[in-house]
């Protein structure tokens, strides 16, 4: 673990503390206050609770070794129930308690509501799960970072896969006209056209929930596309692939993580075989990820749950930045996060100028014998 303090580093850091000991208001105490915010009760609690456990595992390990630069880390846990109106209270509470960095929030909506409060207080926030493009790409939240790829990263992942891995050149882009599917499809179209290696032969929206999609399938056939890239959810995708099979189309089907659901395989049955979908990065070969899971099992006697790896990674990344910068000031932390790579369960990550983790992305899966299998 990179966080354990080597002797030289410790002495350098200690010197730095002495040299620059102008305590800022928020780090006046002799502990580092580490906030954890997210849904810890309610129907989305299963998304938020794993991040508390992840933070606890990392922090306990560091505290056992004497803390960071001589300071112990104290956890402040606040529940936002994934609701924007409550998230603002959560953020206010954490800020007034003098928190130094925050792990969270979990839901994009709640995160957006809470961010202005942290921004005014100059506090670093890192989410393991909020994927809304706006959070990083709008530039409105310079103090926001995340260890999960934004929605916008999915389109290039799908397109790269279809063109470079599968070698297709004629692409039909279909979407469901919805808030999730349409931006994905538009992103894919733009990316294909900019790349210049392949052509978009068809770009259309379908009506979700319509009774059948024979006509659009005929249109795909006529367009001569050799692959369909679909932005949307699994009910429509399973109807389309079923009809495609009925009409004897051999066109490949590449889709997003809204389709990567077991219901898709259950409903589409044989027609689902050979369908490609994007999905959250597969970390099963990362030794840190497997170790973190084992730690969790030993400490809490169960499997970690959603976003655990991302939360574990975010905790390490933030504490590493505090250690390296020997400060909890936003500017100092940002500099470390954006320049230095740190080993985490989601890979060796640093962050780009928007706050998105570089090297964290999507893996592509293929349906094989009724299961999603990672395509290497």
């Amino acid at each position, binding site marked *: 673990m990179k966080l354990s303090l080597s002797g030289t580093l410790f002495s350098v850091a200690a010197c730095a503390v002495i040299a620059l000991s102008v305590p800022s208001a928020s780090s006046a105490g002799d502990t580092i206050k580490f906030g954890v915010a997210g849904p810890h009760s309610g129907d989305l609690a299963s998304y938020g609770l794993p991040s508390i456990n992840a933070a606890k595992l990392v922090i306990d390990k560091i505290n056992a070794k004497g803390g960071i630069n001589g300071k112990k880390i104290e956890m402040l846990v606040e529940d936002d129930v994934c609701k924007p109106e409550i998230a603002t209270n959560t953020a206010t509470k954490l800020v007034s308690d003098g928190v130094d960095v925050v792990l969270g929030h979990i839901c994009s909506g709640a995160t957006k509501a809470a961010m202005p409060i942290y921004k005014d207080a100059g506090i670093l926030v890192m989410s393991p799960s909020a994927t809304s493009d706006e959070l990083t790409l709008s530039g409105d939240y310079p103090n926001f970072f995340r260890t999960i790829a934004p929605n916008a990263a999915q389109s290039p992942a799908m397109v790269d896969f279809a063109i470079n891995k599968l070698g297709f050149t004629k692409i039909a882009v279909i979407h469901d*006209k919805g808030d999730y599917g349409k931006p994905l499809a538009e992103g894919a179209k733009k990316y294909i056209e900019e790349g210049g290696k392949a052509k978009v032969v068809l770009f*259309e*929206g*379908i*009506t979700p*929930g*319509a*009774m*059948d999609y*024979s*006509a*659009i399938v*005929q*249109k795909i*056939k*006529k367009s001569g596309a050799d692959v369909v890239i679909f932005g949307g959810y*699994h*009910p429509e995708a*399973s*109807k389309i692939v*079923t*009809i495609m099979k*009925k*009409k*004897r*189309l051999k066109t490949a089907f590449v889709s997003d993580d809204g389709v990567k659901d077991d*219901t898709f395989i*259950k*409903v*589409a*049955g044989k*027609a689902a075989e050979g369908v490609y979908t994007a999905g959250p990065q597969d970390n099963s070969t990362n030794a840190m990820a497997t170790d973190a899971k084992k730690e969790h099992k030993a400490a809490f006697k169960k499997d970690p749950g959603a976003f655990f790896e991302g939360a574990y990674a975010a905790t390490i990344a933030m504490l590493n930045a505090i250690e390296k910068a020997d400060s909890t000031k936003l500017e100092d932390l940002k500099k470390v996060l954006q320049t230095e790579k740190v080993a985490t369960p989601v890979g060796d990550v640093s962050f780009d100028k928007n706050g998105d983790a570089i090297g964290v992305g999507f893996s592509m899966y293929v349906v094989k014998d009724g299961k999603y299998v990672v395509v290497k």
Partner: protein
Amino acid sequence: MDYFIELFFSGLTRGSIYALIALGYTMVYGIIGLINFAHGEIYMIGAFTAFIVATVLSIYGFPLLAIVVIAGVAAVVWSSSYAYTIEKIAYKPLRHAPRLSPLISAIGMSIFLQNYVLLAQTSDFLPFPALIPEFAFMEPIAHIVGSSDLVILITTFIVMIILTIIIKFSKIGKAMRATAQDRMMATLVGINVNSVISATFIVGSALAAIGGLLIASHIGQINFYIGFIAGIKAFTAAVLGGIGSIPGAVLGSLILGLTESFATGYVSSDYEDVFAFSLLVLILIFKPSGLLGKTTNQKV
């Protein structure tokens, strides 16, 4: 040309399904002047019944033909008994109430049935077994007209003929027509209006149940919400053709299905619904009673 034929058949298939559902709307409207908004849910219940029966029977290893027949009969019986009960509970007590009351009751019934199936079954999509096999003789043209398209077209055609014969020549058919023309007069000449109305609900929902089985088998999935969209589209088709008119419902459905299919094929599927509903608006502007509707003084 191939492309045109493909779109034509996919439009025809879609139109046939709309027709099976639209007939229920139009028959009920013709007799008691009520738009039965719960009719889409009857279609959905038909599909669910067929799903449950077919799944159970295939576990016991019944041959496919037997499964189709038994599931079809079960769906028809089950849907009809639902429709019969709904009429008795939700519409009959309101027969002499202002027109708006049974309409609201129908909307309430529709919401109730959706949520009932949601709670009793599941909110998830369920895989519907392929009850219509892939015929070997269809293989050379499977890319244009699939086996399930063919079965849907033929079934709808046969059902239409049977329905026409019932309405034109049978005793209950004559009673239905008489009740539709003048309910009071029909009572005076000794027709039991209540049982005629029940019979209308039963026939209409039997058609919807057959539609439910066919379309579910065609697209391979069902959930509790499918009745809503199917119901809206079929209702549109019934209005297009002239609500209350049986040939009108069939004509309206086929026109709607073909319009949607060609709009998707030649313009853009983004505008599929825009074309369908623009057509409806245009027809209603120039012929307010629908294509084959009779001009009556006032019904809703």
